[in-house]
């Protein structure tokens, strides 16, 4: 096949450095794609060898020619879908994330055609995920316009190869219909000779074709609807646009032409970089500084910086006064180390919530709804106070969307932490001039750099305004920040939504039909998924530890509900010990990530009586299900999880249920819970049909998918 390249997917020791680190070969990942290839090529070859000769003699040569052309088309699209880079984003270089590193929020909001869309910070790739981008846990890459990870082609389906995948589905449906139809014709004419080899083979081929037709056709219909509506599978399954408006649609016709007729999107990784030939040497020209230049600031387009900044400033003052009155002071240590931190934190909350609450897009939106932060007081509480405090709040209060969405930013990355945190510390150490250096004003150069780096409009401006120099200095010294953060583990930042916390987690999950049980990362939907379960298995024992992850979005009650749901969903899967949902009190040191985490987790509880919310290790030890789940999102073991769902009988609705639950926010999750058939309908469409496992529910589910809309 032509110039296609696939990085990160073909499980090999050598992967492009900018996409994902080398991962061990996992043969289990190749089973579905091998099976699919074998069935496709094998059955078609048998058809051509046994059925077509007679057909061409009896009727016309056009029949094998037509079948040949269709089969060639199927193969071509299959290969393109399998081997083409789906649109992997290269990892961001270190310079890029320095500015948002320590105190930057986990989510950034952008407005797309009047609708608020959240961009989540990807801890692995080190940037805010563009809209529609998602991180695939199987491939460990952020993929542009992420649709899903297809195990049957062993590749992510994203912007670059969605067209081929869609055409593959269409052509495969046509091919199956043709094979089945002509086989039937053959059989009808050979009713008296059914015991002949040709007839037997034809009947076998027909069986295979008939078996695969239902799921394939169901999936094809599903994707036809998706293309017409301008949605990705990820968005559909996670219910992002349920009851809301899709900002990415341009109308049915334009959506279809965009999928089929747009120019092939370029590869981002593996590009040849031209060596820089420009020499930059002083002396430099300087512009004539005019008054207008000095005074005016152009309003940014797209990201609500000014609105945020003004809002955050005022709400910041309000929050400060509230916090002083309402809550006991936070532990002194973090303040000393991060002088600007509280300010930054405070500004963070109001920034996010104010942006979401006061933004009143003309149309109701999913995005606005989901991350609706609680009142400033509540959020502030969450931001600046101890774990116990927050946890107490969350436990006492009735579940509500506001409550639950109090820490959307918390959510994220489960403490998987350790590895990432350690890696980060290692990376940062070189720059670190001392771990305690956060509070000290770094050299002017770094400050200058930080100012220079502060090019992100919305989220940084309020912080700049609120924190002032201290913040920028402390923020900027990312090296020291990371060092301090790493060492600080337990104290950590009181802010929930900081990217720094997310940075410590290895990976985020992604939507894969197989990893149904594990919450995947969708850019705006993380909130619902994993955070729920962990706190509750161990409620009273270690409140502060659990809190680190628990606070994320949902309240205790919802978390409980999710727990029960997930346990139902994972009932079939709990047999295998390594599966994500085992509520082990101590994690088995199976994964390498766990190994990294373990030492920390054992140390942490002893070191700190009241670990901060975001200390990774305690979270890990306490929140097994969560960390398991989260880990399975990003861990190389994720494929193992997919194997088990496919091993589950097709009729089982558990995996799909778990999957659909994990992807939706609290609100939509409730909806899902009440409508399990849809969840099951959605999921089998993905892996099972492709897998040629005759899941009879596929077609019905395919129709069922459309119903809930």
């Amino acid at each position, binding site marked *: *096949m*032509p110039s*296609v390249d696939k990085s990160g997917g073909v499980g090999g020791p050598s992967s492009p450095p900018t996409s994902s680190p080398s991962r061990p070969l996992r043969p289990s990942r190749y089973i579905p794609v091998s099976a699919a290839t074998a069935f496709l090529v094998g059955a078609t070859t048998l058809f051509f060898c046994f059925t077509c000769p007679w057909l061409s003699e009896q009727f016309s040569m056009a029949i094998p020619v037509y079948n040949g052309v269709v089969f060639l*088309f199927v193969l*071509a699209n299959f290969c393109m879908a399998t081997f083409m880079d789906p649109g992997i*984003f*290269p990892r*961001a270089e270190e*310079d*890029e994330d320095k500015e948002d590193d320590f105190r930057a929020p986990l989510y950034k909001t*952008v407005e*797309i*055609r009047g609708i608020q*869309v959240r961009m989540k910070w990807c801890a692995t790739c080190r940037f805010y995920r*563009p*809209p*529609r981008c998602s991180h695939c846990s199987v491939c460990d890459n952020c993929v542009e316009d992420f649709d899903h990870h297809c195990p049957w082609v062993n590749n992510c389906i994203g912007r670059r190869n969605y067209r*081929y995948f869609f*055409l593959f589905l269409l052509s495969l449906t046509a091919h199956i219909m043709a094979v089945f139809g002509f086989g039937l014709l053959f059989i009808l004419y050979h009713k008296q000779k059914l015991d002949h080899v040709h007839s037997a083979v034809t009947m076998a081929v027909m069986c295979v074709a008939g078996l695969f037709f239902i799921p394939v056709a169901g999936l094809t219909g599903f994707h036809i609807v998706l293309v017409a509506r301008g949605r990705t599978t990820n968005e559909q399954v996670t219910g992002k646009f349920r009851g809301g408006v899709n*900002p*990415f649609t341009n109308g049915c016709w334009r959506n279809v032409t*965009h999928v*089929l*007729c747009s*120019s*092939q*999107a*370029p590869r*981002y990784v593996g*590009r040849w970089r*031209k060596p*820089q*030939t*420009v*020499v*930059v*040497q*002083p002396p*430099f020209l*300087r512009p004539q*500084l005019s008054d207008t230049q*000095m005074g005016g*600031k*152009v309003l940014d*387009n*797209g*990201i609500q910086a000014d609105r945020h900044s003004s809002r955050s400033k005022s709400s910041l003052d309000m929050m400060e006064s509230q916090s002083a009155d309402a809550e006991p002071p936070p532990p002194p240590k973090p303040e000393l180390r991060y002088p600007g931190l509280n300010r930054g934190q405070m500004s963070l909350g109001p920034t996010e919530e104010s942006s979401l609450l006061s933004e009143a897009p003309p149309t109701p939106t999913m995005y606005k709804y989901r991350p609706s932060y609680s009142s400033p007081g509540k959020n502030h509480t969450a931001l600046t106070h101890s774990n116990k405090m927050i946890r107490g709040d969350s436990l006492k209060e009735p579940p509500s969307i506001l409550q639950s969405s109090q820490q959307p930013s918390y959510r994220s990355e489960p403490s998987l932490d350790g590895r990432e945190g350690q890696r980060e510390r290692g990376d940062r150490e070189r720059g670190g001039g001392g771990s305690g250096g956060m509070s000290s004003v770094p050299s*002017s*150069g*770094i400050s*200058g*750099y*930080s*100012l*220079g*780096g*502060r*090019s*992100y*409009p919305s989220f940084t401006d309020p912080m700049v305004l609120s924190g002032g120099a201290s913040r920028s200095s402390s923020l900027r010294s990312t090296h020291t920040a990371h060092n301090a953060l790493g060492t600080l583990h337990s104290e950590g930042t009181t802010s929930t939504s900081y990217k720094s916390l997310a940075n410590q987690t290895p990976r985020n999950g992604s939507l894969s039909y197989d990893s149904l049980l594990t919450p995947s990362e969708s850019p705006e939907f993380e909130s619902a998924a994993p955070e729920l379960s962990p706190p509750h298995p161990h409620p009273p024992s270690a409140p502060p530890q659990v809190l680190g992850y628990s606070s994320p979005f949902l309240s205790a009650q919802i978390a409980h509900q999710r727990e029960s749901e997930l346990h139902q969903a994972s009932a079939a899967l709990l047999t295998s010990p390594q599966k994500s949902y085992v509520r082990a009190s101590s994690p088995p040191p199976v994964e390498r990530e766990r190994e990294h985490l373990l030492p920390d987790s054992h140390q942490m509880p002893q070191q700190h009586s009241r670990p901060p919310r975001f200390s990774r290790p305690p979270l890990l030890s306490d929140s097994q299900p969560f960390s398991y789940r989260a880990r399975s999102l990003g861990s190389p073991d994720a494929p193992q999880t997919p194997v088990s769902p496919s091993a589950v009988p097709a009729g089982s609705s558990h995996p799909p249920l778990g999957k659909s639950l994990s992807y939706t926010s609290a609100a939509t999750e409730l909806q899902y819970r009440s409508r399990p058939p849809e969840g099951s309908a959605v999921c089998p469409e993905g892996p099972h049909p492709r897998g040629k496992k005759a899941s009879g529910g596929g077609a019905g589910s395919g129709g069922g998918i459309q119903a809930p809309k």
Partner: protein
Amino acid sequence: MAQTHSLQDLRQQASIAAKVFVQRDYTTGTICQFQTKFPSELETRIDKQQFEETIRTLNNLYAEAEKLGGRSYLEGCLACVTAYTIFLCMETHYEKVLKKIAKYIQEQNDKIYAPRGLLLTDPIERGLRVVEITIFEDQSNGRIEGR
């Protein structure tokens, strides 16, 4: 390039002071557009108009690359008909425009940005997420590493 410089030459090379990242503008959807907002860090280094002109030209070029027109449609049809083998010999429309963009950025760097101690990085190297502008220190002895 830097490998063969003598120590003396290296000292005379400008060192990087800061990096500015111009983010994507998503107001009109996911098409590739960059924000034309003038970063404050560049205020003392370059004219606002010049910067905006550069970004606007880039935006226009990217819009041209992503345009759904007859050309891209024909390209798609041809690819289909040849079972995508055409991609082995032909350059896609997008890639052609990317080359044009690379040339434009190179030219802008040579003519406008480098003399002002700035350097534009082709956004394709960052996955079309940001335009990275490197700001160089004005004094070679004020060697402060921004990284």
